[in-house]
């Protein structure tokens, strides 16, 4: 090994690798082993059963919708928090972290109370013919709530560090506000946006506590994959639970690989040549 001036490399590397192995890799390996103990045919029949497929569909679609919504809303929120100075800004800034701090079950119960047929929002939306509680829309809203901080907190520091001279230069070259946003600001934010989006999506895929109260949990309709896994565990069917969980795991891996690749592409310009 090359001599390094910074002290403590071996110790810190050893400790961290040990913990990553113990806390992250070991449970994942156990999951894979459990799922692998099923035969291929059996595995396939569990993961491709109509109820499982329906749960993937509702989970992924709701997570996609929630992520797209958060992409716009989170960007707007980060923009407002960094660009403007208004009374209460610090309060709003602190509130962004609430979904992280709040137990997700508490969030789920409050959302259900708000959106149920006689709740504050639910009663108004009901008159417009929109039902949120116990529908995929409710799942989406719960996912939006729990994953909002990811986009805001990844984009905010990048926006703060953006050199105002870049925008001034673009203005002096005749660019309109929209052109400058589209051609200068957005490309520079895109790596952070991608990172935030993938975290937000991953969180939504795995969210459990906030959703089960508002979802209604009807099999084939509003039953999310995480809940299906939980149900299988309750039935002591550990192999089926592991099989379904492995699908979520693979999805998360594939998605992270894709976003990493996209991020590397968006950051091509930082490569020294």
């Amino acid at each position, binding site marked *: 090994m090359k001599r390094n001036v910074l002290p403590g490399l071996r110790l810190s590397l050893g400790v961290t690798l040990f913990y990553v192995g113990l806390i992250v890799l070991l449970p994942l390996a156990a999951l894979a082993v459990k799922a692998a103990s099923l035969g291929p045919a059996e595995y396939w029949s569990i993961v491709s059963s109509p109820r499982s497929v329906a749960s993937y569909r509702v989970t992924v679609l709701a997570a996609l919708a929630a992520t797209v919504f958060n992409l716009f809303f989170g960007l707007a929120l980060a923009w407002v928090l960094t660009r403007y100075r208004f009374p209460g800004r610090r309060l709003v800034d602190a509130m962004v972290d609430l979904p992280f701090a709040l137990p997700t079950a508490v969030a789920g119960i409050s959302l259900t109370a708000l959106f149920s047929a006689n709740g504050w929002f639910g009663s108004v939306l009901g008159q417009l013919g929109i039902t949120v509680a116990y529908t995929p829309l409710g799942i989406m809203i719960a996912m939006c709530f729990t994953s909002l901080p990811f986009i805001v907190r990844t984009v905010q520091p990048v926006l703060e560090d953006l*050199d105002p*001279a*870049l925008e*001034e*230069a*673009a*203005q*002096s*070259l*005749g*660019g*309109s506000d929209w*052109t400058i946003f589209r*051609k*200068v600001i957005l*490309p*520079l934010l895109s790596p952070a946006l991608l990172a935030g989006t993938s975290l937000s999506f991953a969180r939504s895929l795995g969210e459990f506590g906030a959703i089960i109260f508002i979802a209604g949990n009807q099999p084939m309709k509003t039953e999310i994959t995480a809940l299906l896994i939980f149900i299988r565990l309750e039935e002591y069917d550990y192999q089926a639970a592991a099989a379904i969980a492995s699908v979520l795991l693979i999805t998360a891996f594939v998605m992270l690989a894709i976003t990493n690749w996209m991020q590397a592409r*968006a950051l*091509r*310009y*930082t*490569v*020294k*040549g």
Partner: protein
Amino acid sequence: MKIRLDNVIKTFDTFRAVHGVSLEIESGELVALLGPSGSGKTTILRMVAGLEYADGGHIYFGDQDATDIPVRDRGVGFVFQHYALFPHMTVAENIGFGMSVSKVKRSKAEIAARVAQLLKLVRLEGLGDRFPGQISGGQRQRVALARALAVDPKVLLLDEPFGALDANVRHDLRRWLREIHQELGITTIFVTHDQEEALDLADRVVILKEGRIVQQGTPQAVCRDPKDAFVLKFLGDANRLTGEVRGGRAMAGGAEVAAPGVADGPAEIFARPRDLDWSLQGPGVSATVTRVLDRPGERRVIASAASGEVLEFDVEPEREIAAGEAGFVTLRRAKVFALS
């Protein structure tokens, strides 16, 4: 394009950065705004660009009142101290940016041809595909200049354009900017705190202090006839002696120098390091050498006068002189201002 500033004022919160500055810049002129930090030079430049709005007064481009025209419609090219190149665009895309967002539509081929022409002008042929992070500071600043020139600006404004560069690169770019200006004849204003840069490059130097113009003129005029002690000291190293003027002669501790037109009474005497000399016999300011610094072209002598003032002056490289030697500092030439 002729530019005229008429009694322009700018205040930030409670701090007045620019106090009623009036200035005329002729078409095709290359003007330096020179001053220490906080003198308002950058604020003035940014107001001419439209990056700051003036709180009072008017800015005219030719006969048109440009005071309230937003920067994107003002037709200025602005070069920033830290380049402000778009990091995610190649050099060619950076240069083409102004053309690609312009209301005047150009075809891709037209833009590419103009970009190639500008790359040649700034001597960066072949670097069009690089990203700003892959080229040197001096090259970046040349890209920034090409990008500003691409929109055919009426005025070119440069904010400390060489401030972030190495001394050698700075020197080369200075000469090169002068050549480009000669070639294009575009009205140019640049801001600097480096007096050498201003004197080297500009047709006219405008010296600012605390938001006001102190003096303006050709480099020759401001160097030969500085209006006051501030201008004199700001333009270069100077030794200061206090003395007295009597009948057009200034006297300080045994040294005497002509002071035509200065009223009798106490006075400040300023002399550049080359205007002093060392001699073992008087008349002169009696002093002791404390240090000798050797430099490629001369020897810089630091001596402390009997009256306590520290004097710095240059002698020829061959001169034998050592610390501890006592003698007299003689005055060849000096600028005298009456102390009021």
